[in-house]
């Protein structure tokens, strides 16, 4: 069982944190990961920067531009993560757009993930059908989860298909929007959360996009196994850099239960 499956088996109210590799400083990638594990994050998604990220809002986009300017590449990321295991035990997911991964070579990419101890991958613009046709066997063989996104507009049939072929969790985009929108969770979103909840899917779900504080996190936890915080954390890094104390405060402020 890989670390992601283990996590979902053992824990509820999972807090996943997204941040961009090589941001704010090129060498921050692994130190921030260490800080996050110590601070009590349950899962981490590390973004591989791309110059034209279609699903990301200004905050994450800008962190990506900075990271690219710093010289971040997929090659370098794997180098930086070389000592990830056994030093850290937190499950790690890499998230990035298809073209750089494709250029790196999917086979080589999956192999590098396996070697460094990366547990899962999210490629938001990789079509589900293309994944099944060309890459599913590769991922399964290496024991790497490939995580897919669903939205309020995703047809039920497709959700069921993703559920059946999912081996990590399903990433629920809470609204048809790019990341970093600071809205409270609306009634419409709640209806969507409930609808998906009632589908009795086999795979656990995490809710992402629009989760920025304790209130939105807890609301998400009512309907899913947990939630993902991205832009709000990038903003913190932007202001404070890899400051363990501030990061710990941030994680605690979201996780603290009443």
């Amino acid at each position, binding site marked *: 069982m890989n670390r992601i499956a283990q996590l979902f088996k053992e824990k509820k109210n999972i807090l996943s944190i997204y941040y961009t590799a090589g941001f704010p400083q090129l060498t921050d990638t692994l130190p921030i990961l260490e800080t996050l594990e110590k601070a009590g994050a349950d899962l981490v998604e590390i973004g591989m920067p*791309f*110059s*034209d*990220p*279609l*699903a990301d*809002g*200004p905050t994450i*986009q*800008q962190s990506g*531009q900075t990271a*690219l300017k710093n010289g971040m*590449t*997929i*090659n370098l990321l794997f180098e930086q993560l070389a000592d990830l295991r056994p030093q850290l035990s937190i499950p790690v997911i890499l998230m990035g*757009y*298809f*073209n*750089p*991964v*494709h*250029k*790196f070579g999917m086979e080589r990419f999956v192999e590098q993930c396996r070697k460094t101890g990366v547990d899962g991958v999210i490629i*938001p*613009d*990789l*079509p589900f059908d293309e994944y099944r046709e060309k890459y599913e066997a590769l991922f399964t063989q290496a024991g790497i989860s490939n995580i*897919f*996104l*669903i*939205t309020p*507009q*995703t047809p039920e049939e497709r959700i069921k298909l993703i559920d059946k072929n999912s081996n990590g969790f399903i990433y629920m*985009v809470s609204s*048809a*929007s*790019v990341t970093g*929108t600071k809205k409270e969770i609306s009634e419409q979103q709640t209806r969507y959360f409930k609808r998906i909840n009632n589908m009795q899917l086999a795979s656990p779900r995490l809710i992402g996009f629009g989760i920025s504080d304790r209130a939105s996190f807890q609301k998400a936890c009512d309907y899913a196994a947990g939630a993902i915080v991205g832009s709000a954390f990038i903003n913190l890094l932007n202001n404070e850099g890899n400051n363990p104390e501030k990061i710990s405060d941030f994680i605690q402020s979201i996780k603290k239960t009443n």
Partner: protein
Amino acid sequence: MESKVNLKEQLRVENMPTKEGYFGEYGGKFLPAALESVIGEIAEAYDRIKDDPSFKEELMYLHQHYTGRPSPVFHAKNLSDELGGAQIYLKREDLNHTGAHKINHCLGEALLAKRMGKTKLIAETGAGQHGVALATAAALLGLECDIYMGEVDIKKEYPNVVRMRILGAKVIPATHGLKTLKEAVDAAFEAYLKDPVTQFYAIGSVVGPHPFPMMVRDFQSIIGIEAKAQFREMTGKLPDNLVACVGGGSNSIGLFSAFLHDESVNIFGVEPAGTSFKTGDHAATLSFGKPGMIHGFKCYLLQDEEGQPAPVNTIASGLDYPGVGPQHSYLKDINRVNYDTINDQEAIDAFIKLARLEGIIPALESAHAVAYAMKMAAGMPKDQTILVNLSGRGDKDIDYVVERFGKEFNISE
């Protein structure tokens, strides 16, 4: 000949693209989940509406009475005589209302948006031609309009920015990266995702995810359909050669699509070589790119070793894009269309030459096609013909040309 049989089979335009939007291995939909569903909605609507007789009639009426179609074909005798070779003919898309071919698909997209119940059109623009055409269609059909444009292009193509504003559109600067066309596309996608319900993203070329490459081509195919009949009427024959400039590739596919099956017709797509063939100095995607994914589709792509889109450069903002239409990518692979390049200097020389010899100021984009035709014509017998798509007029470029080339051509104060 076996290859000819294959060519016919490969070019069955009625099968292009596939249901999933593929031209060979290119095209498709490489989209995050949130965009997949909203763009799927456009594909469905287009499929439903495109063959509706009332839709076709409405569009045809506007083409005729609003845009001024058919645009004429003009035999550029002075230019041909000066070169002493093949006869050059110009398809005068520069005479369309708003001054370029872009109005052809903008009216189509705007009518579609209206039938879908959308209230706002959004788009990116490079040189501003697409933006002006879309702002025009929006004004005509009573829709709001937001145009995303790179900060650098806003300065360079200022007259078009003002035109868009006069037409009631909002011009929103894209401020990241090189601040040109690619960044404008990023900004438009981002804005689209924020409100896919009331907005319709009218992409400006035969690029982006399915159905855009197909839909924009269909709307532009009127260029080739007209030109074929007009040329035949003038000469009794088909043209021996076609030439058009290729950025995203909308004007060129519009002309080419009517001739793809005519094996006697040689077809040339002209890409901008900018200042040199070094990465970052040009935008010649098909000439130097490798297959990759950008903005939701697969195509030839100028990119670095890490799969990041490469910086691009040309004097023609409308050609300044690291990707290219998927159908062009396919036509290159099957060798149906020859893709070649023209650099900044050759384009500006043609710009002046056409103005001085024929009294026509072409857009800097179209000047690339004219330059290529001039090069070809000089070495050909006089009974050969070249039909060039003069995709737009150069009014928008005059300030820039005076500023950069004023001394050279003795046109500055």
